[in-house]
Structures are given as C-alpha cells and as structure tokens.
C-alpha cells in the first residue's frame, strides 16, 4: 500500500505481526481545522508539508488503523494476561529488583495529574510542588547515605555506577576503577560502556569464598597509584552485608570510595558516609516503586558536599523568592549539558523524577520506625528461609557465612534453571541462577524474600523444594 518505502522486509514483518489490514484511513478534516487552514491561506493539510522534498515523502504509515479505547484495552489486557505475575505467584527473584509492599497512598500521590503530567521544573515559580518533593527526596537519601549532596535521580543503579566511575575520574584524573567480581554482569557491561569515552580501566577484585564478603587481600593487590575509585556493594550480589566496606577508606585513602547500597537496608545499616564513602549509589526501586519488569527504576546518587560541582545529574537547591520566602529551584545547571554542552558532567536530561517522588512519599509513610522495622523484617525473614532451605537434602543454604540482608545464595544439586522449571510447576517463580553473573557459581542461585511473603508462601517454596530435591 505504501509506495517507495525502502525497507520492505520490515514493513512486511510489521504487517505480519499486527495481522491487520494496513489502513491509511482517510482523515476527517474538522471544521476547526478548515478555519485554521484558511487563516493560513491554505486549503489542505498537505500544503503544510511542501518543504519536505518529494523524494523523501511517504503517504501514511503501514500500521493498522486507530482503535477505540475499549478495543485497545481489550487487546492489550489479553496480551498482558500471558505474563505470570508476582501478584499471584510467590516470587523469590531478587538480584537488583525486589517485590516490596507499596502502600496504596504512594500510588495516589504519584498518580496526581500535576506531578505526572509536568515536565522538568524549568519554571520554578509554577513548579514548587515537584521541586520541593524532589528536594525532600534528596534530603531522605542524604540522611540514609550520610552524604549531603544528592542528585534528583539517575536512570538506575547501573547507570549510576557508570556516572560514579566517570565522576571519580573528574575528582582525581586517574583511570583505574575497581569493582567486585561478585556483581551483576549487567552492571559490569553498563559500566564498561560508560567509561569507554574516558578509556578508564575496569579491574575486578575477588570475594572470600567462605564469608561471601570482598577479599581484602586481593583488593590490596590490585589497588595502585592510578586507582581512581573502588566500588563496593553492601549488601552485595550474594545478599551479604559486606563488613569489609567499613575499612576501605582507611586502607585506601587516595582512591575515591564508591558504595552501592539497597536503601531499605540503610534502615539498620550504617550510613556509608560515616565510613568514608565519597559517592553512594544504589537502586531505589525498593522505595515504593513497582517492579515493572525492570523499568522505570531509580538510580540513587549521592556524594560529599565538597564534590558537588563534579556531580552528574539534576539537583534541586533551596533558596528564596523575591519576598524572602523559602523556595526551591534546579541549580548548579552550569554542570549540565544544556549549558556546558560537550563539557557537561553528564548528558542526563530526562531522569526518573517521578520515581524519586514515589520514594519520598514511601519513606514518609514508613517513617523512621517503619523503615527500620522493614529492614529488620527482611533480615529476619531471609534468615529463617535460608535456614529452612538448608535443612533440605540437596541444598546448601546459605552458601556463604556472612550476615545477609534479604537474599542469599543456595548451592543446589539440581541445575538452577531446571530447578526453576520444576518450581514453576508449583506456581512458584523461583530464584536467580548465579552463573550469568559469576560463571563458576553454576550450581548456585539467589533466593530473595521480603515482607510480601507470608508464611504460607515460604512453606509452599519449602514443600516444592523438598519434592523436587
């Protein structure tokens, strides 16, 4: 139907998948539009496109014709119904994304038209609501991380790590960046893309096979004079609270210390700023944000106040209006791309602001006691579950001796992928096989548990594991 398109294969594929007649339905030009065209001295919409050279014009799109809202919802719901959800299947997947409870009030707030449908707050006077909510987000993260300067979000934890590495370079112009071997392969991949431009060198350090914490010896052997930064996660990929992190700043005062956290765990764990972190990053999805198949997420990024002008991303600052009343606005924009262009501290423009608002509302509803309690419940539930799994024949759980937060590694005699398939027959979404991240751990998998799991959910998992073992 559409002439002169160069990419017939694609067009064909689209036609096949959509399984509809292509329909370049004639457009009904409305009276309003006729008036407007007349005001322009034009008689057709086509005339608005005379500046598009004939050779590159197309005559409509080879997509199905528009549908009514009823049909759209019916179709999409039918497609989506093919997903199994953690809402009706106990799900023990973690490794970066966690199924936490989201108080209904969080949705009420982030669904508010005024927040949802606004752009980046370029006009502070008419956008105080978003600005204050983001300032509060920054304040919460500052308190949790123990660092004064926080940006109003990056895309996710992995890009936050990428930004952290390049910031380390800006801090000390060095090029070596150390990361744990025990880390999500996705983060490693993202990081290597982020440091590509600066040609930074990424070096992995090992972990202690007994405790699951980082191997300080190995790390020592890899830190050199060109080391720009050291990245450590706590809890780490194994769900282990890495106590070695406490000593890194003392050991390696010259290198920037970058700590990766689960913000919920900071309800009971020491603020990394208090043990010397220069930069703290983390995945904020836990803070009242849906799993959403992995996006949108919330990249947490905090640093010491003295480094603030080297920080990437948007920041909201406190100030006052012309009458001296407290007000907020985006600030330190001279670091940013729209002013500094190719010299900017980052290219980030659209970020995850609404997710930051969600985090703010979430933390406000939990409050001090709530966050602390939540962290404790997660620790206790994981502890109980790992021990019970450990009692089952064929499972070594936990595989590491360190203290855990809300997930843990289990060594299984069955291959993890196979085990998951078996669990699925029991309507359980199992654990994350570890081999993709740490290839030699090919009989290991990560199980996560949170406040969302009832005792019945735990029992279902244990029962299923017993049956398949």
């Amino acid at each position, binding site marked *: 139907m559409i002439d002169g398109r160069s990419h017939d294969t694609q067009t064909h594929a689209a036609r096949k998948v959509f399984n509809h007649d292509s329909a370049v339905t004639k457009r009904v030009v409305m009276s309003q539009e006729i008036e407007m065209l007349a005001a*322009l001295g034009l008689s057709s919409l086509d005339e608005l496109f005379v500046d598009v050279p004939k050779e590159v014009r197309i005559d409509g799109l080879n997509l199905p014709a528009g549908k009514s809202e009823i049909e759209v919802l019916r179709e999409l719901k039918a497609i989506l119904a093919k997903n199994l959800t953690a809402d009706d299947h106990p799900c023990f*997947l973690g490794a970066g994304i966690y199924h936490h409870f989201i108080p209904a009030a969080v949705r009420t707030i982030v669904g508010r038209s*005024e927040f949802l449908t606004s752009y980046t707050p370029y006009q502070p006077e008419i956008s105080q609501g978003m600005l204050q909510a983001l300032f509060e987000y920054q304040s919460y993260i500052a308190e949790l991380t123990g660092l004064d300067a926080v940006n109003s979000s990056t895309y996710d934890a992995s890009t936050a790590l990428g930004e952290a590495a390049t910031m380390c370079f800006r801090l000390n112009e060095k090029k070596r960046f150390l990361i744990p071997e025990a880390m999500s392969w996705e983060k490693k991949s993202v990081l290597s893309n982020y440091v590509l431009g600066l*040609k930074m060198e990424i070096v992995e350090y090992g972990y202690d096979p007994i405790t699951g914490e980082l191997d300080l010896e190995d790390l020592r052997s890899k830190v050199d004079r060109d080391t720009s930064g050291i990245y450590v996660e706590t809890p780490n990929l194994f769900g282990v609270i890495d106590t070695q992190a406490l000593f890194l700043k003392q050991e390696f005062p010259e290198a920037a210390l970058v700590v990766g956290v689960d913000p919920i765990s900071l309800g009971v764990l020491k603020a990394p700023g208090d043990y010397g972190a220069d930069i703290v990053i983390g995945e904020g999805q836990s803070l009242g944000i849906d799993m959403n198949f992995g996006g949108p997420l919330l990249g947490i990024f905090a640093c010491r106040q003295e480094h603030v002008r080297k920080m990437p991303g948007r920041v909201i600052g*406190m*100030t006052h209006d012309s009458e001296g009343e407290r007000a907020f606005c985006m600030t330190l924009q001279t670091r940013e791309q729209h002013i500094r262009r190719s010299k900017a501290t980052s290219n980030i423009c659209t970020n995850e602001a609404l997710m930051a608002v969600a985090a703010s509302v979430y933390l406000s509803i939990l409050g001090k006691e709530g966050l602390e309690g939540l962290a404790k419940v997660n620790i206790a539930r994981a502890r109980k579950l790992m021990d019970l799994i450990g009692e089952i024949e064929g499972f070594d759980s936990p595989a590491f001796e360190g203290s855990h937060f809300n997930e843990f590694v289990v060594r299984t005699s069955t291959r993890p992928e196979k085990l998951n398939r078996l669990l699925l027959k029991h309507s359980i979404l199992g654990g994350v096989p570890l081999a993709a991240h740490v290839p030699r751990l090919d009989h290991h998998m990560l199980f996560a548990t949170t406040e969302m799991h009832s005792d019945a959910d735990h029992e279902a998992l244990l029962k299923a594991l017993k049956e398949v073992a």
Partner: protein
Amino acid sequence: MYQQAKHDRRLIMERDGHSDFDLPFLKELTDQDIAIPTGMRRTVLDLPSLPEREVVKHYVNLSQMNYGVDNGLYPLGSCTMKFNPKYADYLTSLPSVNCIHPWQAEETMQGALQIMHELELALCEISGMDAVTLQPAAGAHGEFTGMLLTKAYHLNHGEERDEVVIPDSAHGTNPASAAMAGYRVVEIPSSKDGRVDLEALKAAMSERTAAFMITNPNTLGIFEEDIQQIAKIVHTAGALLYYDGANLNAVMGRTTPGKMDFDIVHFNLHKTFATPHGGGGPGAGPVGVKERIEPFLPVPKIVLKDSKYSLDYDRPESIGKVRSFYGNFAVLVRAYAYIVRMGGNGLKAASDRAVLNSNYLKKQLMDVYPLPFRELRKHEFVVSAKLLKDQKGIRALDVAKRLLDYGYHAPTIYFPSLVEEALMIEPTETETKETLDEFAAVMKRIASEDPEVVRSAPHNTAVKKVDEVYAAKEAILSYRAFKRRGTDQKS
C-alpha cells in the same frame, strides 16, 4: 484571573507526628532474628515519623503547587507536551505490567515480550528503520547508545573515527552524549536561514568524522530541505547520519528518518508517544538503526520464533548493555497503547495537526513577536522578544514569567541561542483552536502591559520570582545540609 494554589511549605521533615505504618511479622521479631554485624549497625536514623494522613495531605497540597499538562497549555518548545491519555495510566496499574520481575523465565513473560516486540516493529515502521532497541531510558541515553553504536560500527570497519559534527542549534544533550562516548565535538554554525550550512558541513567532514547529529525539523521548527544533500555529504565522508528524534512529532506519516537516509535515530517516547513526563522522568529513548548497524545493538534482542518470544543474549558484536534489564517497560506499554489507539492514520493526523496548530499560532503572534526566519514552520517555532526588549525593556524571560500569571506554562526560552531573546513555542496537536486563540491574545496583551508588571512577574504563582543565583551559590541540596548551615530563609 488565574491563581495557583499556595499551601504551607514546611518540609515533610519539619512536621510532627507518629507513623501509623504497620508490618506483618514485626511484633514477633526478637533481636536474635536480626543479626547485624558489629560496626555495620546504624545508630542514628533521623527520619520524620508521620501518620499517613499527614503525608497524603503534604503531597496532595504540594501537587497543587505544580503545573502539568492536565492543568493547561504547556507550549514548551522541543518537549512536545501533548496530552497523556488516561487509558495508559490504567494499563500500567495492572499487575500484569507492574508486578512482573525482569528475571522471570521467558515462558512467564510472553505478554511483556510480545508488547515490546510489536512496539519495536511499530517504531521501525514509523521511523523507516530496520531494527530498534528499547533499552535506553531517555532521549539523551538513546543518543549515548547511538554514539556507542557508531563507535562499534566504525571499529568493526577498522576505523577509529574520533569526531562528531553537530550544528550549533543542537540540543545540549547531543554534544554531551557524543563527548561521553569519547568523541571530540565539532560544532558548525547554522546558515542565515537557520538551517544546516552545507558548506560548513562539508568543511567539517573528514575521515575523522564518525557521525553528523541533527534533528529534522530542526530546533527552530524548520525542515531541512537539503536533507538529501546532507545525507550524501555525510555518507560520502564515510560517517553516519544520526537523527535526534525529539522532533519526530512533526513528520509522522509524512516522511521518515529512514527515507531521509539517516542511519541511527532515537525516539523520545515521552514526547512523540504521549507518555507522561513525570516532572522530569521517567521517559524512554529507544534507538532505531539501519540493518548494517543492527548487529551492534544492546543485548538482549527480542526474538519471535514459532509464536514464542525469547531473549537473545548471544550477539557477539553487541555493545552489551546501556542499563539494567530491558528498558522502561511501563513507559513502553504506554507508548504501545498510544500507537494502537492512534493507528497509522491517527499518528499521521497527530503530526498534521501539530504542524497546523504550530503554524496557526505562529501566524497569530507574528506581528508582535517577530519570527527570525519567515519560513513555513513545522510543529514548533521560535519567535523573538527582541522588539519588546528594545522598545519596552521586556525580555523573553519576562514574557515567560508573565505567562505563568495567566495560567499557562512558559515556552522554552533562550534556546536555540542563535536567536536573540528566543521564545520557542510548541503547542502540540492536542490543543484546540480556542486554546490557541486565547493564548495568542494573552501573549499580545502581555506585550502591551505595564513593563514593570511584566518584569516583576510572576505574581500569581505559589512563590514569587525565585532567586536562582543564591541557590547556585549556596548549593543546599538536602535538609541535612540545610540544618548543618544553621540558618534559614524566612518561610
């Protein structure tokens, strides 16, 4: 006249109460259940504690001090602030969207993969590209991805090209993204009529040039009529032609980047495809490429075989990942729903109407706010407040602030910088003629108002003119930092 709501503006940290949040299991916990390693235990956690009632009140009232598309016209040029349909909100509230885990097994996420796959195909059709990755989280992230692809492509051809050419009118993210990928940015000036200067382009191109990044229509809303020559110049030099898709809303169903011979394009789903911008994000910045660049796309690629969708990670030439997982899925679902709702005909109609609205509004304003370039415009246009400034001392900034008093968001100002006192206006297709007429009338009225009233605007917003210099000087980014300083503004 319009008046924005004003509420108590204490921080949530400055309120007092007791949290009523509750958790299962908590009451039964003993210290033994929760072993926290010595040294790692937190001693101070200085968070507020408030009943949900207070939290809801606080944020509902904050929201009323924020302006969104749902409140009215948001003619922020380059940002395509069209109406965000509500069926998309509904869809993302379903557990089958929001309660699936990215590490689930493929057979448990067929619905998600199908939607992503079909969205890829639809974006291919809309852009005339051969393959799309949905992974990037925003436009700038898409640009960065595009630059990584450019690098991989040239490296694969044994070339280490290290420059990217960009017009001076480009959005700041273009040079920033190119630089992040390690490219030296070569900026070329625009021609007198606001378009790419072919001579300057030719002069800038060399065997070091990896790519030329532009948007078409450009940031002035002008269609680059020489696009075929531009493509030829770029390709002759062995470079790739990159399309910043922020302005795609002008041309859907009328032309495609593919047809214009672009090699790589990013989309801003939060602009063209009507997903809400959330006060700064989340967005989604898929990247489309021509066939020869496809091997380098990020992993995983969604593959459809025998009516089963799967994720292919085994792509040796891939650049790897630019973020975790598969993209901003909830945003992708919204965009897909929008495309299905609009259909091919509806998307074309959207672009047509966007261009009509823009040209119509431009016509209403031209007398008072002259256009630097008298071309037919596409979906947005840039006028100048220079005349007003010279005659009455009213700058673009003043006009922008004064518009807030009338209940409109301001246009983009002082961008692109090649226009003095620029006001960049993009009404989008979802506004009625009535709205445009009313907005034009207010723009004209402002031009004839007492300059003092305009310069001291805004008067009707939750706060008066904000001191941005102080903010930058003090850099108070958290309540913690604020308390540490020990002083306060009057509040």
